[in-house]
């Protein structure tokens, strides 16, 4: 089996490795084995160059000025928005740039959740998240519930890290759920949720839906129109893009009805002494000078994924997951967390008996193998799983089975250091 996987994955990874300058890094003569793309992605030269070129040759204020550089900057910025929107089956007006996924969720929690006009959330209402959410999709809702008197509730997960749909349906049936906030692909257990089906159930129960696609966009085809969630958020730095940029796709009617959240330049039409009127979508939600170079870089990241083909990335990472799930158990005392490969995106969390994940991270790090260790910003989930921390290997298009082999060998060496 190993051989078959090897040839299937090798072609993509070997083809793209040269695009990622960071992979040329060596440490103690060991090549970089980057298995932490779920924390932050590496950027291909195409993206880095787009940012560099923008700052070096185009940079000027957008939207307002009449000179040539300013026109080019505006065209590059709005052109990036259009390509980002098209890639996800959305439109430019419904595609709002934020700093990251976290800010996009907070935008919804404020502009939608706290708007007295749309009357979204109040006492007696339930905000429903799931036990597998990232802190960024929990804490804003805790704060919203604290401020509005609503109740936060959690859809339970099954022991193998899948959403408990009976629990979800029971909670929706109560009729008081105003919002379902759910992750598309979990960053800890790796589960791929059927967010289109979840959205349909929640809508049938009268709830609004926010989907956190931070882990999904980099690794599988996402069509926000087909999913039909009211809000779909993701983050650029995990999707081969630069830091400092995230995206909120929203349902047009909701975005139009919502009050703006941040006030300032660019989001206004007119500013009077006491009151102002708001700009059209999407700018109504983009206050102040935008992250222009970052948007341009994100546009280049989208182009990059489109060129590789996100289905190819998905198939590639799936093959890596299958290979890793076969090889990792060779390490004595290793337990993998989460569902089988068929329900799993490109990442695997695991623990090792007799060694804290922090020490795993330190020791494999010496072999230039980069894995994430800790609570992965999902403390409630860790508590549910009765864990303090895990180690996590996550994949990108440039990973290959040699990376997994390196991890497995390094884990064996780590156990020797610990005399296990």
């Amino acid at each position, binding site marked *: 089996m190993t051989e078959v996987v090897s040839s299937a994955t090798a072609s993509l990874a070997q083809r793209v490795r040269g695009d990622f300058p960071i992979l040329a890094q060596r440490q103690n003569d060991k090549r970089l084995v980057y298995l932490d793309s779920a924390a932050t992605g590496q950027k291909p030269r195409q993206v880095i160059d787009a940012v560099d070129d923008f700052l070096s040759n185009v940079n000027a204020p957008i939207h*307002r*000025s009449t000179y040539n550089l300013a*026109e080019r900057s*505006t065209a590059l910025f709005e052109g990036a928005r259009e390509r980002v929107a098209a890639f996800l089956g959305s439109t430019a007006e419904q595609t709002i740039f934020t700093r990251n996924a976290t800010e996009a969720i907070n935008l919804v929690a404020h502009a939608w959740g706290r708007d007295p006009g749309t009357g979204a959330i109040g006492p007696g209402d339930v905000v429903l998240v799931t036990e597998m959410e990232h802190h960024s999709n929990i804490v804003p809702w805790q704060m919203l519930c604290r401020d509005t008197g609503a109740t936060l509730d959690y859809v339970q997960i099954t022991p193998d890290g899948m959403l408990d749909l009976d629990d979800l349906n029971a909670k929706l049936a109560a009729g008081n759920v105003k919002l379902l906030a759910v992750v598309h692909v979990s960053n800890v257990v790796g589960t791929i949720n059927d967010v289109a089906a979840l959205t349909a159930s929640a809508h049938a129960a009268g709830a609004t839906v926010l989907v956190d696609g931070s882990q999904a966009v980099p690794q599988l085809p996402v069509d926000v129109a087909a999913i039909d969630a009211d809000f779909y958020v993701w983050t650029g730095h995990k999707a081969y893009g630069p830091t400092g940029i995230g995206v909120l796709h929203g349902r047009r009617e909701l975005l139009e009805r919502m009050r703006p959240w941040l006030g300032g330049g660019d989001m*206004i039409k007119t500013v009077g002494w006491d009151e102002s009127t708001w*700009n059209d979508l999407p700018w109504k939600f983009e206050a102040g000078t935008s992250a222009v170079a970052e948007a341009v870089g994100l546009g280049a990241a989208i182009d990059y994924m489109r060129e590789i083909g996100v289905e190819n990335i998905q198939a590639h990472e799936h093959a890596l997951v299958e290979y890793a799930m076969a090889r990792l158990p060779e390490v004595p005392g290793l337990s993998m967390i989460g569902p089988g490969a068929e329900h799993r995106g490109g990442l695997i969390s695991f623990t090792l008996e007799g060694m804290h994940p922090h020490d795993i991270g330190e020791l494999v790090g010496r072999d230039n193998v980069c894995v994430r260790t800790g609570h992965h910003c999902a403390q409630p989930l860790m508590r549910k799983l009765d864990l303090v921390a895990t180690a996590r290997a996550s994949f990108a298009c440039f990973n290959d089975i040699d990376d997994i082999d390196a991890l497995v060998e390094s884990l064996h060496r780590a156990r020797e250091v610990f005399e296990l």
Partner: protein
Amino acid sequence: MDELYRDYILEHYKEPHHFGELDAPDMQAHDVNPLCGDELGLHLKVDENGVITDVAFQGKGCAISQAAASIASDELIGMKIEDAKKLDADWMVDLLGIDVSATRRKCALLNLKVLRGAVTGDASWPDE
């Protein structure tokens, strides 16, 4: 001669036709270009047959937006409201007779936007 600031554009800018206000207009609207802050108001008189009998516009703006309002006003007088409702961006740009760059397009179309606001209530940009 300049490609953009043609003689007739500058003439309309310097001495705009139908600049001012109407007493008791039958229809009116007012809007701004959020990019530059330019404002434009439009007053229309309409007779019992739905024909525009008089037009006046107010506001401050650049040569393109002022010339567009001035030239369009000439055209509007005598036009049926039903026909005015159908006017689109191409009509305005053709009427201006100059190549309008992407940045100046909103200048060229502000008047049409306000006109459509007055006759249909639709406040969106003609390009959308």
